């Protein structure tokens, strides 16, 4: 058994949770959020949308299946800090190549174990996601001092983070089999499985950095444009919103997920707001207003688009509709333009981690491109 030194998780409201050092030793600051998925920690940790967040796993035993070479959703771990109750002593899985803790250490992710994650989650549920810090080793100091450091860090509201996570160079994910479409995907923090799922449907995916201009993007005459997920406050994403408006104006089929849904929402003139503690899990129901059908979805968002389930509203690009909502709290889970070829969802049809119920949305995107006949 690893002898662990003391560690502390300090919240901006002054509450302190004590545990033991886990992963890298040191200090990490970020917004503390909880994720309720019982599987898929590797995907969660490598999801760029968690950039600058300290993730609390509500599942109490983490690391059981170790770390493998296939399930990363990007080239690195993005979470800034990691909070668990019981880390596995040994991993057990035929694909595992090393332990989760080794991966955390290698990538310098400061974590804390032994915390009563349920009490912490209940606190966050009531008080909302907030700034926090994980401290271990030499970074440990008096609670006052630690709190000062937390209060000195930046919050999530107003944070423009997509620039941190976007690819530096464009790259192409080739279609599997015959190429039927070319898709320009704006990388706001895209996960590996997204281009993979599009590729499986005959799309050649050109993943483009955030700085790409609308002119450059449209000049390549893609069959469709995709807006990915990503971290940060959508209210700051003016560049991406401008690009989305250009795509809408050009009537190029557009599909957005998560952050992409918020970008489309803003492009359609809707506001976004910060939720108290957001949706982070792989068990979240979404209802399609049209069919009444329920999909169990993977989600990871702290901001949402304003709107009511089923609401139809006017936009600069013709009428649009709130096409999907979450029956847990009535929040907007999807938008659809009724005339322009554009739609988006707040959840993750690429899953990873999470259920595959929403995968047909990629087919819908293909259908939209078919119909637009470009």
């Amino acid at each position: 058994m690893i002898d662990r030194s003391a560690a502390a998780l300090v919240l901006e409201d002054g509450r302190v949770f004590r545990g033991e050092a886990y992963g890298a030793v040191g200090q990490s600051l970020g917004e503390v959020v909880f994720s309720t998925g019982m599987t898929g920690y590797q995907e969660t940790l490598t999801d760029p949308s968690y950039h600058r967040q300290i993730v609390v796993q509500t599942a109490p035993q983490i690391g059981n299946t170790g770390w493998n070479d296939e399930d990363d959703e990007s080239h690195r771990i993005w979470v800034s800090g990691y909070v668990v109750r019981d880390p596995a002593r040994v991993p057990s899985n035929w694909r595992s190549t090393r332990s989760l803790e080794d991966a955390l250490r290698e990538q310098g992710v400061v974590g804390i174990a032994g915390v009563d994650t349920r009490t912490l989650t209940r606190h966050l549920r009531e008080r909302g996601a907030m700034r926090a810090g994980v401290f271990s080793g030499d970074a440990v100091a008096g609670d006052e001092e630690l709190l000062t450091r937390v209060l000195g860090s930046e919050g999530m509201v107003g944070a423009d983070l997509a620039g941190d996570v976007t690819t530096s160079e464009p790259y192409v994910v080739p279609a599997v089999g015959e190429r039927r479409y070319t898709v320009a995907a704006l990388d706001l923090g895209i996960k590996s499985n997204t281009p993979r799922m599009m590729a499986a449907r005959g799309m050649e995916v050109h993943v483009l950095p955030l700085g790409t201009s609308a002119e450059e993007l449209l000049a390549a005459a893609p069959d469709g444009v995709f807006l990915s997920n990503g971290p940060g406050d959508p209210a700051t994403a003016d560049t991406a919103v401008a690009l989305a408006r250009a795509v809408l104006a050009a009537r190029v089929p557009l599909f957005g997920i998560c952050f992409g849904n918020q970008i489309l929402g803003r492009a359609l003139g809707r506001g976004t707001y910060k939720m108290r503690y957001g949706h982070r899990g792989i068990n979240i129901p979404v209802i399609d207003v049209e069919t009444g059908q329920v999909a169990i979805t993977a989600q990871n968002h702290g901001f949402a688009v304003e709107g009511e389930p089923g609401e139809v509203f006017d936009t600069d690009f013709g009428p649009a509709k709130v096409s999907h909502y979450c029956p847990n709290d009535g929040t907007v889970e999807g938008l659809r333009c009724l005339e322009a070829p554009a739609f988006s969802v707040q959840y993750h049809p690429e899953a990873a981690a999470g259920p595959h119920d929403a995968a047909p949305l990629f087919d819908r995107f293909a259908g939209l491109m078919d119909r637009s006949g470009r």
Partner: protein
Amino acid sequence: MPKRDDISHVLVIGSGPIVIGQACEFDYSGTQACRVLREEGLRVSLVNSNPATIMTDPEFADATYVEPITPEFVEKVIAAERPDAILATLGGQTALNTAVALAERGVLERYGVELIGADIEAIQRGEDRQRFKDIVRDVGGEVPGSRVCRSMDEVRECVAELGLPVVIRPSFTMGGLGSGMAHTEEELERLATIGLTESPVHEVLIEESVLGWKEYELELMRDRADNVVVVCSIENVDPMGVHTGDSVTVAPAMTLTDREYQRMRDVGIAVLREVGVDTGGCNIQFAVNPANGRLVVIEMNPRVSRSSALASKATGFPIAKIAAKLAIGYTLDEIQNDITGETPASFEPTLDYVVVKIPRFAFEKFPGADPTLTTTMKSVGEAMSLGRSFVEALGKALRSMETKAVGFWTRQDPAGTSLEDTLAALATGHDGRLYTVERALRLGATVDQVAEASGIDPWFVDQIASLVELRATVIGAPVVDEALLRRAKRCGFSDRQIAALRPELAGEDGVRALRHRLGVRPVYKTVDTCAAEFAARTPYHYSAYEADPAAESEVTEQRERPKVIILGSGPNRIGQGIEFDYSCVHAAMALREAGFETVMVNCNPETVSTDYDTSDRLYFEPLTLEDVLEVVHSEQRSGTVAGVVVQLGGQTPLGLARRLAEAGVPVVGTPPEAIHLAEDRGAFGEVLREAGLTAPRYGTATSFEGARRIADEIGYPVLVRPSYVLGGRGMEIVYGEESLASYIERATEVTPEHPVLVDRFLDDAVEIDVDALCDGDDVFLGGVMEHIEEAGVHSGDSSCALPPITLGQTDLEEVRRCTERLARGLGVRGLLNVQFALKEDVLYVLEANPRASRTVPFVSKATSVPLAKAAARIMLGATIAELRGEGLLPATGDGLDLPADSPVAVKEAVLPFHRFRTPEGHGVDSLLGPEMKSTGEVMGIDVAFGPAFAKSQAASYGSLPTSGRVFVSVANRDKRSLVFPVKRLVDLGFEILATSGTAEVLRRNGIASTVVRKHYEGSGNIVDQIRAGEVQMVINTPYGNHGPRVDGYEIRTAAVARDIPCITTVQGAAAAVQGIEAAIRDDIGVRSLQDLQAALRKGRA
């Protein structure tokens, strides 16, 4: 999609008696269904032959038929009730098979009844193994290679292709009955022959072995809008090869990555859709090759199952309740999640704790039975526990089992076991395999060695290895300080385990005192379906120890109403089953109504008591002193505890009474001292003497010499048993000195602390059971039951009639007098069960138990008086007079002066013999004795004894024959009394087969019979004839302990294997004849309990 408006009356089919593989989880699911359907304004009719169920309480349905669940009787109910629809997916395999039979016979069509939940096609697609495999392949899933075989030739041919080992699975049986794994040619021959016989369609599936693979289950639900959710994933710690009901299981799955889990989910959903279960729950089992992740689908239950009950309790998602709503047309998103109160049921529960279920076995009851765990389920019950980690939940589950060992290190290791032996033992599934894992690790085996030897995933083995390491730390620490204590508690160590490791801490009490002094106490978390994402409204709690000082308890304060804590009965086992849960549930209902806040503590996931709807608060906790004291503490901190009820949950809570009282806990009802009075032979003798009551002569011995002296003095036969037992454990009738010596040697560790009781055994006496209430002064006789078998057969195994059928008025008055004196003499406040024996006009008191008995639900149903509810009220201070005034008890009269035209109720026990085999593959003996062996019971109720008895037989064993051959072979002493019943059988047209001695007696009495060879007389003998299906009923009374007993054994096991009635007592034979007469007249009707009870009340008024 809103509720369907074309259904206004639903018939719910229950699951009948508790048997292995089908226990009270179906009462839980059926009760939920009835409740939901009535809330929806539907008329609900119900058929279930099991009187100990909550669902058969008259208030749960509009018309409750306690009738046999056979196509014949259910058709009669349909004819009487004319329902629009039948819901059969919540009553286990029994209900499903009955529904299939009704459809095949055209009954459903004839009466225009729709099967809701799953249609016949879907049931057959799910259960027909070959069709199911094709479906899995069609949706892109994999299955083990296999073939359906209908003869031994086909079996041999198939195995030539697949190679050994193979798994044999008979079609359409429950709990894996008749299935097994064949490693050798001989095993193949034996198991496949049995399997072909056990299958009602004479069909077995021979399957590629996935032995040793990881085993998983998913619980899924689908609505009619085709929404599907996975409620729970379950991982079996025991790898493939052990029936999931016999495996230690964990929820959620612990060793799957998201990719593998989602693949399983995708395949599961695709299979569910393709099979076409319209609405409701289903369970799919998977195997995963640990080397490469290959996933194969094993099987599916297109209905609510045992695992569904487990999943419901494990997640807080009430599968049966929601299945019932889906069946009448709602969709998942229209149904609210009760626990959060604001989110819909269309989501997948997520857990922030770990659930462990451990099966409870009863091999000690069936000497000779093979205790190896296979694909045939053998466990009789289970306990579940929740903790914040696997090891914490494991520790709690191990101490919930009510076994001699209560967690690691609480029992001596078996002497002289080497590491090699221990590792070798791990290769096969056995009761307590995790104890063996721990021992192997402690003896120096590595995690890999143990994982290799057992097939258990290394992650689980490593978890146990962490406990072995912590054990060493606890032993080696200079002092047990707060940090170490907290660490040990967080890993699930009980005070008792710590005491075993640190003897200087002065035992469990010493550890508890130290722990309290250091402030190391559990917090109580909530099962909320959502890992705290939403606030929970339902107080369903479990304990956990946290190291984090910020940890919170979630028990809310409630100071307006006084609280009553009801202790449940723990895992089902023989002698302690659903009947006790029934009483606990009734107490919760009655006390809630009387203004108390009710708090339930139990660890059995199958029960109604652990439904969060039953009490105001639920603590899913082990029923040990430590865990109960902590619950009491938690409740005292959050309000006022008026009392703790220990008398309704059977021996488990009763055993805690004294120590709870000593710890200052307010135990209500009959005081612990009075309980002791009844259980201590000497003290009880004093009570009897003072009350002027007679008991069989007895003595208490602490050595064989002593026992021999007593037996000589009072005369053989004697009944010998250890003191303080339930279910007659270790009890035997001994006919001579030799067998007395052998008993003492075999059965008991005789010491001054554990004396053996030697009672005179009353041959040929009539046994009488009484359940009564006493408020300290007034006595209310609930019911008097006359046993059909004579004294000597355990009361739990014998059939009985209420009202008594042969007792005269003077006998009954004597019963009343004795019961009243005993109740007052003992100082009973609540329920009292007395067993009497009547011999030659003398009424002997055999024993008295100041607690709820197994017969309370039966009596309550037969007499329409809620005894357990009344008892609970009395314990909290109400008097019998007050309860009469309230109407909870009848205004006048009691169970002894029932109106003359009262119906007759017959209780029959259901025995599990056919589930057990010796290691050589023979059946185990089905002979009844003073040790209880039955798993459940049924009730037959009708206007007279004959039809009531016929119903009880039909409900428990299949119908009594109305024609054919009856084999008669009886002990000499019984020959005279059997002449009349046998004569009657001949008159009714039966052919009599008899052994030569019996035939001679019959001939002299003018009864013709065919002489058949005894078993040892060579081929064509009676055993062969029974096996060949040429005999329809057997009357075979045992000859005592010597001589031809072996013959009787073969006859009885053959009868059990063929599922024909096998009557082992003279009284039973007479009753059977009456039943057969009623069956031949074919005038046995069905009548609802509501109807019968209205008549009873009218008769009383």
